[in-house]
């Protein structure tokens, strides 16, 4: 039996790594991957708690998260490809379209 604290801590570490990845990298694709890492960290926490509570709800949630992630990745990558066609770059610090 794996202690719950370990699992949650592992989840937190992986999540933080994802956050740092979003913050320090400038390649949109890598940032996107870091987001996936964060999602998976959350999934890990879900599964850990599901196991801990002997309930399937957590696993179901992970299932939904995976579905959403799949949809999100498809759309996100399409956007990145489109962006690359327009701007010839995937570096987020060369793109500041969010500025009003």
């Amino acid at each position: 039996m794996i202690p719950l604290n370990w699992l949650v801590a592992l989840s937190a570490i992986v999540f933080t790594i994802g956050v740092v990845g979003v913050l320090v990298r400038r390649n949109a694709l890598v940032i996107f991957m870091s987001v996936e890492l964060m999602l998976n960290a959350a999934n890990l926490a879900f599964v850990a708690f599901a196991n801990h509570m002997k309930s399937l709800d957590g696993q179901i949630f992970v299932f939904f998260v995976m579905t959403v992630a799949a949809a999100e990745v498809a759309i996100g990558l399409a956007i990145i490809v489109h962006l690359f066609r327009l701007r010839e770059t995937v570096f987020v610090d060369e793109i500041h379209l969010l500025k009003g």
Partner: protein
Amino acid sequence: MTIALFVGFAALLVVTSLMVILHRNPVTSALFLVLAFCSLAGIYLLLHAEFLGMVQIVVYAGAIMVLFLFVIMYLNLQHDVESGVQIALRRGIGWLAGAGLLLAGATLLGRGLALGPAAEVSPDQASGNVAAIGKALYSRYLFPFELTSVLLLVAMVGVIVIARGRARSPREDA
């Protein structure tokens, strides 16, 4: 045995995750991410979530990451150039923020996270949880489950529309 395996997978997960964000080459990052997902699948197996473990590999490693690789190759990305004062500053801030987040999380976890005792009741977990998950999905979670199909449809349409770009009128072609 379980603990040992867990520690091994956990170490692999942390190291590969770190490599994802540290490596300059996006392809390598993606491959490390695949590895991270696989080790995560291993942890899922240890947690008696066999179905999720396999789906993790099929969906994340087999589909999502292939898509990533596909895009990276399509855009023909090479090593990221990461130099200059501004980027260094950003990295510094980013790592600091990450450290702060981890520290705060650790304090939160260490201080007062009431995890409580494990529940006594055990749903049918021994005989593999595929059937149990299926039953839950098609009964209690039927509506969200059906909604995900709509979501996927929308995503599909969205991707096609975005990736196609502006539709050309016949006159432009002529």
